[in-house]
């Protein structure tokens, strides 16, 4: 029997090891799997490489994971928000590394990694400092930069609905990176608002097929990162 449901977020993230590479979904607060991130903070793994578009806001979720000194390296496109200096402080004193990647290149590197494609050429960043030292090749009359696929040990993502097989449906722009991240990790862990029996989701409307999902945690009423940040919450 296919059964991916776990009793708690703590159980789902228990084997994330020191030095693991972890994909974390979300674009700003939208889609950020905050309960899974908080479980990872409680769990204690250190020296993580985190791949996520941003670096969190306030002092909760991803920002809290960084503030706790658990992230050795961030791979992201936009490590800046109006309401958080956690990443900037660590980056400023040299205690966290940054690999800055244009957003579309980041997405395509994850998509490629998850699809078994080791590298590709893209026109993005040509002639800029972010292409420095990278191979450039001409196709037709245009030059392109060589980039590499990204894979990870774990992915932490959030969805709206999930069935027993791990088929996923998302909510609006909270979808963002989650479907591609689900494909690019050895172990994909999803937190879902609602969990249903196989067959209850319309097969035509499934966004992430269950083959990409390994563990499911039910979080019926997820915390809203934006509300926590507005209230000045600090985790833990």
């Amino acid at each position: 029997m296919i059964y991916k449901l776990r009793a708690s977020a703590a159980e789902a993230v228990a084997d994330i090891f020191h030095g693991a590479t972890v994909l974390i979904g979300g674009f700003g607060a939208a889609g950020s799997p905050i309960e899974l991130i908080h479980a990872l903070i409680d769990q204690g793994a250190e020296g993580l490489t985190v791949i996520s578009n941003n670096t969190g806001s306030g002092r909760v979720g991803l920002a809290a994971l960084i503030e706790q000194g658990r992230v050795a390296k961030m791979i992201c496109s936009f490590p800046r928000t109006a309401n958080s200096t956690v990443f900037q402080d660590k980056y400023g004193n040299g205690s966290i590394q940054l690999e800055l990647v244009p957003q579309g290149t980041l997405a395509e590197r994850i998509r490629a990694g998850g699809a078994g494609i080791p590298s590709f050429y893209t026109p993005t960043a040509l002639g800029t400092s972010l292409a420095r030292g990278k191979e450039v090749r001409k196709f037709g009359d245009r030059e392109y930069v060589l980039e590499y696929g990204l894979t990870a040990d774990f992915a932490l993502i959030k969805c709206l609905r999930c069935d027993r097989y791990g088929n996923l449906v998302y909510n609006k722009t909270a979808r963002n990176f989650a479907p591609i991240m689900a494909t690019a990790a050895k172990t994909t862990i999803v937190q879902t608002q609602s969990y249903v029996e196989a067959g209850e989701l319309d097969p035509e409307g499934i966004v992430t097929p269950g083959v990409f999902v390994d563990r499911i945690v039910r979080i019926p009423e997820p915390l809203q990162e934006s509300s926590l940040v507005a209230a000045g919450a600090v985790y833990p």
Partner: protein
Amino acid sequence: MSDGKRPGIGWSHEAIAWNIANDIPDGAVVNLGVGLPEKVVDYIPQGREVLFHTENGLLGMGPSAAIAHADPELINAGKKCVTAVAGAAYFHHADSFAMIRGGHIDFCVLGAMQVSQTGDLANWTMGEGDPAPAVGGAMDLVAGVRRIFIAMTHCTKSGEPKLLRACTLPLTGKGVVSRVYTDLATIAIGPHCFEVLAMAPGVDRDYLQTRTGSDLIFRTSAEVEANRQ
């Protein structure tokens, strides 16, 4: 004023957004960057159907959401709560940037720190000593969208020109800008230099030239009309 700008002249940010919106044709698909460009959505002339794309996975973005209806999972690239129009579609990031990089978006409106007379754009970092360099989707947008419009103030807060012979800040892309819409003028990137298409009320040629870091040429209205689109 301390920065040498004449007081009381120039277009407001809303007027800049209006100028841009009026140059976007019926049927266009448009990506809007963060900040001033977000206002363009409010000024599309009646009778034109324009679809707005936001990089975080929505085609068919509507105006900002009223606070009572704000949904933290329905946001734009600037992470502000927005709405979705009837007929909107959600998609993941790789699809969103396939639209961008694959040439499926007609126009993009971005902010800028500097623009050169050859259309080079600098809008992502102040360079050395940046406390946290952040690029977002800007480099993908300029690499893939057919026409890049820039919405910005003509000069920096301290009065330095942002339209230059060559950018001094790290580039976002080379030769990518089509037009620049500022508080003082609307300017096309011509084959050899900046070409002024329109000036704000109260702005004259000499004044505009003193606020610009490269030579300007001035088109007659007939030439501008002939060159439209």
